């Protein structure tokens, strides 16, 4: 009856879950960072703030694509 759930104790499956959780936490963290950056950009407006925000968004998108890739190929 429980033969189909054998994959749950597979170490590679656990590794996959671990990686997904790590990437998910990383995404949440980057979201908080981006909110803070936006808040700081309002506090003090500098000409190069746009570049800083763009780099943050790129990092967030990289983490999101990593999450999806891990979900599919692992």
């Amino acid at each position, binding site marked *: 009856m429980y033969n189909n759930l054998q994959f749950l104790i597979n170490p590679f499956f656990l590794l996959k879950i671990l990686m997904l959780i790590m990437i998910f936490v990383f995404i949440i963290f980057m979201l908080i960072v981006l909110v803070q950056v936006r808040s700081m950009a309002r*506090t003090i407006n500098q*000409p190069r703030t746009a570049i800083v925000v763009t780099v943050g968004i790129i990092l967030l998108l990289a983490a999101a694509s990593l999450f999806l*890739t891990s979900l599919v190929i692992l």
Partner: protein
Amino acid sequence: MTDIFVAERENKLGGKKDQDNLTSVKKQVPPFPEIEPKKENPPAREEEKKQRFAHEELIHFKSKEIGLFSSFHLYPINVSFKEQEENEEIILLLRKHFVTNFYWIFLTVVLIFLPIIFFLNRSLFPVPPIPDKFNVMAFLLYFTIIGAYVYINFITWFFNTSLITQKRLVDVHFVDIIYHDMAVTRLNLIEDISFTQSGFIKSFFNYGDIYVQTAGEKLHFDFLAVPEPDHVLNVIENLMGGEKNVQ
């Protein structure tokens, strides 16, 4: 007794004849049309001139636009802050000297080369064999985390800014991502100002700490590791009117 002779005053232009000639010339030349002097706001203009002159020694720091890695900028363009008043001009924008970022940049370089060293000497590390796809994903995640580490350190440096306007000092703190605050004090509330520049690295790269004591709500304003601390001190002193106790 000695006699005191008083010589008769002579006209510098010469005798009476010369004076007569001059009056005749004066009559021939038509008078200039009277030009009214331009009415300007002399005290304000002079004050501004004075201020500009005081900062002339720093003029080589003034460029068109503030750079991404700039830590000392005179009259920055397109910079404003939240509670900026009308006609309040930012004179100096300060950040920590870029050299202070050396620690995390060095650590990043080490962290970048660490997996390469690991893969080259894989036999030395007792790691169980795992499929390549896990290796690739772990590798990508590792570099994304390094990217985030660099990003967070950079924005911490980038947003820790001090501004000097002609009216106030503004200190923006951005620490540990989740904490930031902004302290403002008026120049007339400054009681004492001093700077320290100790150690070989600080002297070599010419940066130091400026301590400002105020009579306001926040008693201490510390501009840490700012470049050209002596010039910054001079600028603040000039803005204050040079009457305060400057150590």
